[in-house]
């Protein structure tokens, strides 16, 4: 049925062969990238030879390829994502569910939801072109479907034929036009939730997964074993089909590269009006590369989101460079804080012997403090085990000791305590040198510490109410 479309191509005498090497096969000449070149050349041929191909046919031809590729590439992408993130096993398509939606679930929840929504509105018009977007893919399939049906004049005929051919579309890289159409049709019919389609989808998706996993393995783990298989596939494809058929297979990876490149560039173009427009993205690496790039980019963006939550004040910043700037500043400030605190601890430390004595020696007031009964001069390791367990209660004690400070009504009790305790320390501490140093440094630190005062507050905020209760 599609032969009439092949004939004019041959008649126009277009040489659809190029001489760039097939990257997946690493040897044979690469057939030209079929879909967009076809678009280009079809239009050119129309202009040149004056064939009166009605525009809708060209549009259909163009759009027939593009959505299929996108669907296939989406499937592959989802498989690759699944492989990436360790999801096991083939995607199970449930009866009555939108299989395409399930395939998309790996990509992102949002996109999948949108895609499902799109599926349920079959009459929706093709909106703006979102390269490599679930929406676009799903939307574009519907007008294609209608166009296809219009061409053939009967729904049942087309679908039946495709059902028969479905298993012929063994891979995403199947060759013949009917196979392309049938594989394209799979998601379309799948939306109608027929069991056959789901099984077909599962088989085609599993086969596509196999192929994709091979590619992944080849590119990522650098195993040479699968290369032979790919070579044989390429060769087989070339042998089996003619010129017109060989081209769609190899062109799909290029088309996908284009799409992914476009997605990375985020071009918004309407292919309806602009199908002659050529995106010159031909010199791309193989599809596995661009897909791997996409996976890597998504990973990085996910981690940037986590960091955004972690670093305070980063919610407004969206760019990668700005985010990294904030992260660097934050890490530097934390490291400086550690330095400063260690300096302060060094300043306090000469008194530590006495502190320890008083900490563990003279405690009779608080019944909860068990360490009171244990005489502790210097820190022996066995006592440490007990002491660190009761460090929490120690803090209770300490704050009870400075209870007069606590009882002040303060919004920021932690800061107040440290402030006044340091102040009193400074008064007590006779050396003037330390006074000025610590005061200056403390002033700076207090500003810095604002950022981290909140977690510190949460640490101590739990303790304070208990203390107050005990006081009462």
């Amino acid at each position, binding site marked *: 049925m599609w032969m009439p479309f092949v004939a004019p191509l041959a008649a126009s005498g277009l040489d659809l062969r190029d001489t760039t090497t097939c990257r997946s096969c690493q040897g044979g000449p690469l057939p030209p990238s079929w879909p967009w070149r076809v678009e280009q050349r079809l239009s050119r041929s129309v202009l040149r030879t004056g064939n009166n191909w009605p525009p809708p046919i060209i549009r259909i031809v163009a759009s027939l390829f593009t959505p299929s590729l996108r669907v296939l590439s989406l499937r592959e992408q989802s498989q690759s994502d699944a492989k990436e993130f360790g999801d096991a096993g083939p995607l199970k398509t449930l009866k009555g569910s939108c299989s395409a939606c399930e395939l998309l679930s790996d990509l992102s929840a949002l996109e999948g939801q949108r895609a499902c929504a799109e599926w349920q509105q079959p009459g929706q018009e093709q909106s703006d072109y979102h390269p490599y977007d679930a929406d676009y893919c799903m939307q574009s399939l519907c007008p294609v479907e209608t166009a296809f049906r219009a061409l053939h004049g009967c729904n049942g005929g087309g679908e039946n034929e495709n059902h028969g051919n479905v298993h012929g579309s063994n891979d995403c890289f199947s060759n013949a036009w009917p196979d392309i159409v049938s594989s394209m049709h799979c998601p379309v019919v799948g939306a109608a939730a027929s069991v056959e389609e789901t099984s077909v989808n599962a088989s085609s998706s599993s086969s596509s997964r196999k192929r994709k996993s091979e590619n992944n393995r080849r590119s990522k783990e650098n195993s040479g074993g699968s290369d032979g298989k790919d070579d044989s596939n390429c060769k087989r494809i070339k042998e089996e089909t003619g010129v017109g058929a060989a081209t769609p297979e190899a062109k799909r990876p290029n088309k996908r590269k284009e799409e992914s490149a476009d997605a990375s560039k985020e071009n918004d173009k309407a292919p309806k009006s602009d199908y002659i427009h050529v995106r010159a993205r031909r010199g791309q690496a193989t599809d596995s590369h661009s897909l791997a790039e996409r996976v890597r980019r998504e990973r990085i963006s996910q981690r940037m989101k986590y960091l955004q939550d*972690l670093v305070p004040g980063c919610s407004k910043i969206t760019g990668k460079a700005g985010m990294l700037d904030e992260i660097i500043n934050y890490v530097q400030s934390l490291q400086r804080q550690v330095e400063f605190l260690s300096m302060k601890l060094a300043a306090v430390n000469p008194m530590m012997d006495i502190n320890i004595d008083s900490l563990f020696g003279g405690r009779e007031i608080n019944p909860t403090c068990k360490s009171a009964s244990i005489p502790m001069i210097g820190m022996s390791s066995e006592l440490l085990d007990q002491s660190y367990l009761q460090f929490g209660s120690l803090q209770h004690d300490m704050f009870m000791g400075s209870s007069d400070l606590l009882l002040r009504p303060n919004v920021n009790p*932690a800061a107040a305590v*440290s402030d006044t305790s340091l102040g009193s320390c400074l008064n007590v501490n006779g050396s003037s040198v330390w006074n000025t140093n610590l005061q200056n440094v403390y002033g700076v630190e207090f500003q810095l510490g604002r950022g981290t005062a909140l977690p510190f507050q949460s640490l101590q905020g739990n303790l304070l109410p208990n203390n107050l209760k005990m006081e009462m």
Partner: protein
Amino acid sequence: MQVTEAFKHAFLKQMLLGFQASAVSTKSMGFQERKNAIKLSADVAMAVARGSRKWTRGLIAGLSEERQNRSFLRLILGEQYESLLKPCHSSWKIPRCKKIVRRSLRVCWRKQKKNQSGVLARTLVEKRTQELKRLVPGGESMDGSSLLDETLDYVLSLRAQVDLMQSLLTTFEASKLRSHSKRRLPERKASYVSK
């Protein structure tokens, strides 16, 4: 995102052990020395409490570069010291197929030729990535996504470290205050009695 309680406990225990081991509380040390010893034991405690991660290994490797620290580290870590240092993946390169690397470089080069608009943004990001690699211990040998992973972990642990040290500080200061007030009371009593 918060660190676990177990981490905090282990951290504190290790820190106090470190203080003891380095004999920080003796008055014989100078101020700078004491500060360095405290910082060292705090860092080691953080690394030990976190376990085995790229940045912890990098941190300990960086610390053990100085001779004076090594004995301390060995004391603290015991047999863990060697085990932490040995599987040092920082020097390992991820085995990559040269052909694929060349191919991808070609692609990047072609992309750059055709698309000059993203160059500025990319250089900015690269500069900042370099700086972040310098900040995070052991960061030079990491690639983009794992660098961000380790940064996340490191930031969490740093925060916990700051919190713990702050609470330790307030504890000591408060106890010092108490001890001072205690010491003063008998004096006051004596003076009162004498009056």
